[in-house]
């Protein structure tokens, strides 16, 4: 509701509400106030033009056109609203019927509706008008039923969308009756869209009525609505244009009022992501906030010398990387690391820890409203924060960096052949000829162990299995012989058997081509298997940085140890409860003053609550950000039974 209020304060909201308010007030009060004046016949003043006595002139009975236009508001609006109500009601019944009636009968109803939708609404209205007879009532039913099929179709689509969701299935399994299913679960979840569309439909109904009355099929004299007034006035349009224009303007204004209000409702009630109260807010806030540049410059000097030292063979250097969203949300807060040539670095953490945003920021894939700043962000020594021009940077990134995403189905374009999509990478960035690019694509498909690469080259993404698609994705990532491949949860959507193949493939490519790998995953076991070094992220910071081989023996941060213990393995003791990380992940919009993990940490004390620990390296170069890193009995960690809090949250 707060969003609704905010929308009503925008220019669109204000003008829509004012317009609709005026129309509705007129509809209620105009007949009461001016009804007599509008119907007063004055034979001495027939068909006059505008004058001070009759602002818009008079008609052929000497009645005042201005008052008649105002008074006609009620009938016009009333008819439009009733017709819409008929249409919406009939549409709801027809659209929801398949859910209540079951599959077989439902299919019949749906088929009937689909046929009705095929006819234009105006044609249907004329057809019904003939059936129901000339006059206001006939027109009402005609327009009402003409609106029904579109509404039924809309309802059907919305119902089908909701009915496929698990909570409907859950309610069915729980034995909830079909009627209750409809009223309790389905209708409330589609109501917003229906209300919005009903408002817009009211605007069109108003227009349709004017049309029918204009044709003489609608309201009959002595009653009058705008359409009829328009038809009267049109006879003398060359002599008294005002008499024809005024009802026309009234129709336009009222129609606009309904449609604009519908738009405003859509903004206020609609799906947040689409209608985007938040996005609009974000954009506004973004304009106010200064660009990330000043922050970037300041951070370069005081960065911790231990972090991400710039080695000569570094592929990627990230220093003090920050990502923020308008509204004080800081999902990535000063991340620094280095990836050496041919090195596999894993980033692990819960959802919301900022690991994926870090990857996207490095690949320069974050757009407004996200603000990215970094003390240094260099790939192969090239500073990515400076802007050498869009083309140059795109070309550089396109060839030096490969990206593999979680879902191989959505990361390929479904209507283009796999091979063409691979070839496109180097055709676009390196200007390679079509023939050479195709040869390279086939060679890459072969390199990622796709059998019969020539045939696969010509296939579409849906013709490949999930695992093969992900391998093709990896093939695409290494098309341009990149120095770094970023893989963001590349195996989360895959089965364990396929996961192992994909992981092995990544490893072998890393080894064969000396490609560095930035591997992002929530599964610390997988990261430990694939990577040389592991970065553990929590609440937008790196809290631990250590060689993967040391994970079991030298992990010192309580969060890392909790993650390690939380994964059940084939040796987990079935008699004991699983170790869990108690509490909820930190909220990036509302971070505590001290250590972000303190509220979930068994070792937390007063110091943790007040001061935020920074990464400190030990003698072997392992880094950890914890005040109590030394309080961990290292010998015990080596055991399979990691001593972490066991709690039921």
């Amino acid at each position, binding site marked *: 509701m707060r969003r609704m209020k905010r929308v009503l304060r925008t220019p669109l909201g204000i003008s829509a509400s004012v317009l609709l308010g005026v129309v509705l007030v007129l509809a209620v009060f105009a007949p009461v106030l001016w009804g007599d004046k509008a119907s007063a016949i004055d034979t001495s003043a027939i068909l006059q033009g505008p004058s001070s006595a009759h602002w818009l002139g008079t008609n052929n009975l000497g009645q005042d056109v201005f008052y008649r236009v105002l008074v006609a508001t009620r009938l016009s609006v009333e008819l439009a609203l009733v017709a819409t109500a008929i249409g919406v009601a009939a549409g709801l019944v027809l659209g929801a019927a398949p859910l209540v009636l079951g599959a077989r009968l439902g299919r019949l109803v749906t088929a009937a509706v689909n046929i009705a939708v095929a006819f234009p609404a105006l044609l249907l209205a004329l057809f019904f008008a003939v059936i129901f007879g000339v006059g206001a009532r006939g027109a009402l039913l005609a327009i009402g039923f003409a609106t029904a099929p579109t509404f039924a179709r809309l309802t059907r689509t919305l119902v089908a969308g909701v009915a496929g969701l698990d909570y409907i299935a859950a309610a069915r399994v729980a034995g909830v009756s079909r009627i209750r299913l409809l009223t309790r679960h389905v209708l409330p979840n589609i109501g917003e869209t229906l209300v919005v569309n009903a408002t817009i439909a009211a605007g069109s109904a108003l227009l349709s009525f004017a049309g029918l009355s204009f044709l003489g099929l609608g309201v009959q004299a002595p009653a009058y609505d705008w359409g009829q007034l328009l038809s009267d006035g049109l006879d003398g349009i060359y002599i008294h244009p005002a008499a024809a224009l005024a009802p026309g303007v009234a129709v336009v204004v009222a129609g606009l009022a309904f449609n604009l209000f519908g738009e405003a409702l859509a903004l206020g009630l609609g799906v947040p992501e689409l209608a985007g109260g938040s996005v609009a807010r974000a954009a506004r806030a973004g304009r106010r906030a200064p660009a990330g540049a000043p922050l970037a410059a300041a951070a370069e000097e005081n960065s911790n010398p231990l972090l991400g030292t710039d080695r000569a063979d570094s592929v990627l250097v990230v220093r003090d990387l920050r990502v923020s969203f308008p509204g004080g949300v800081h999902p990535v807060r000063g991340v620094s690391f280095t990836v050496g040539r041919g090195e596999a670095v894993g980033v692990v953490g819960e959802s919301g820890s900022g690991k994926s945003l870090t990857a996207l920021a490095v690949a320069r894939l974050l757009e407004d409203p996200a603000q990215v700043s970094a003390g240094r962000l260099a790939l192969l020594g090239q500073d990515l924060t400076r802007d050498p021009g869009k083309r140059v940077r795109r070309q550089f990134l396109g060839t030096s960096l490969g990206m593999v995403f979680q879902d191989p189905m959505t990361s390929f374009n479904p209507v283009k052949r796999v091979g063409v999509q691979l070839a496109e990478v180097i055709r676009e960035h390196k200007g390679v000829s079509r023939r050479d690019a195709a040869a390279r694509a086939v060679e890459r498909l072969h390199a990622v162990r796709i059998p019969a690469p020539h045939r696969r080259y010509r296939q579409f993404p849906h013709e490949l299995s999930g695992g093969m698609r992900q391998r093709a994705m990896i093939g695409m990532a290494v098309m341009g012989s990149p120095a770094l491949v970023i893989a963001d949860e590349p195996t989360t959507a895959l089965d364990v*058997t396929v996961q192992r193949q994909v992981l092995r493939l990544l490893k072998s490519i890393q080894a064969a081509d000396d490609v560095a790998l930035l591997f992002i995953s929530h599964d610390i076991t997988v990261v430990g298997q694939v990577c040389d070094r592991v970065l553990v992220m929590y609440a937008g910071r790196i809290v631990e940085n250590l060689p993967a081989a040391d994970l079991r023996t030298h992990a010192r941060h309580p969060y890392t140890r909790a993650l390690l213990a939380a994964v059940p*393995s084939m040796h987990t003791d079935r008699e004991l409860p699983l170790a869990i990380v108690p509490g909820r992940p930190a909220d990036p919009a509302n971070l505590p003053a001290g250590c972000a993990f303190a509220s979930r940490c068994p070792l937390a004390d007063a110091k943790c609550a007040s001061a935020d620990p920074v990464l400190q390296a030990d003698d072997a170069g392992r880094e950890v950000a914890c005040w109590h890193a030394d309080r961990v009995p290292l010998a015990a960690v080596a055991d399979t039974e990691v001593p972490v809090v066991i709690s039921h949250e």
Partner: protein
Amino acid sequence: MSELRLENITVRFGSRRTGLTAVDAVDLTVPSGHVVGLVGESGSGKSTLARAAVGLTPLTGGQVLLNGQPVTQSRTARRGRRPLQMVFQDPYSSLDPRMTAGDSIAEAIPRGTLRGAAKRAETARLIELVGLPGGAIDAYPARLSGGQRQRVALARALAGQPDVIIADEITSALDVSTQGAVLNVVRGLQRQLRLSMLFISHNLAVVRYVADIVAVMYHGRIVECGQADEVLANPRHSYTRKLLSAIPEPGTTLDATTDLADLPDEDLDQE
């Protein structure tokens, strides 16, 4: 709690000629008070079997028996109670966003058994049973984390006073950290209430943790079934062996030089 027997269950989609047999003559028994773990890769028919068992997908053949009687004719079903309840994979779509956790749970309580204060008390008891704070009863799903939602879904399943619960990949949409919490609740409930449960997952380590009996599904068929220790220690079917060897083992590293001989396997299945 009671024994669930799936007898000769077949589910086909599409027409006779071009259709797909998702579940092919599956026999599976969930003994009273036991947890049966069902593993298999995506597309093997595990979820279809679960949906068919609770009546969300029509059976092409076979029957679902509860204590020897067809589920639809069982005594309890006639009184309006649904003896089979299901917990779904995605906690984000399995709760109505416009109903509080309490309302969602209360809705599943069999009609006519409890009303008013007694219904609310039962809801509160269930909320506590699955380890949620009391305040969760009035919370909308948007305010709950994935793990908390999944526990609400568990409470909702329990509210139906089921004889058997079917849990379909209930932890695969969760982070490892919350997965543990949900598994602990499942394990605790099972020991406390002697639940009969069909626990479906693609993760063998998870299944091993909660299940007494393990069944392996492959291409719509059960290829191996037996005591968990037995199946995991001495797998007989080649797919079970492949599955076991694919589990990432903590503290090991993948050897990139290992020949990738097993890669074409999957592809041959595709051709």
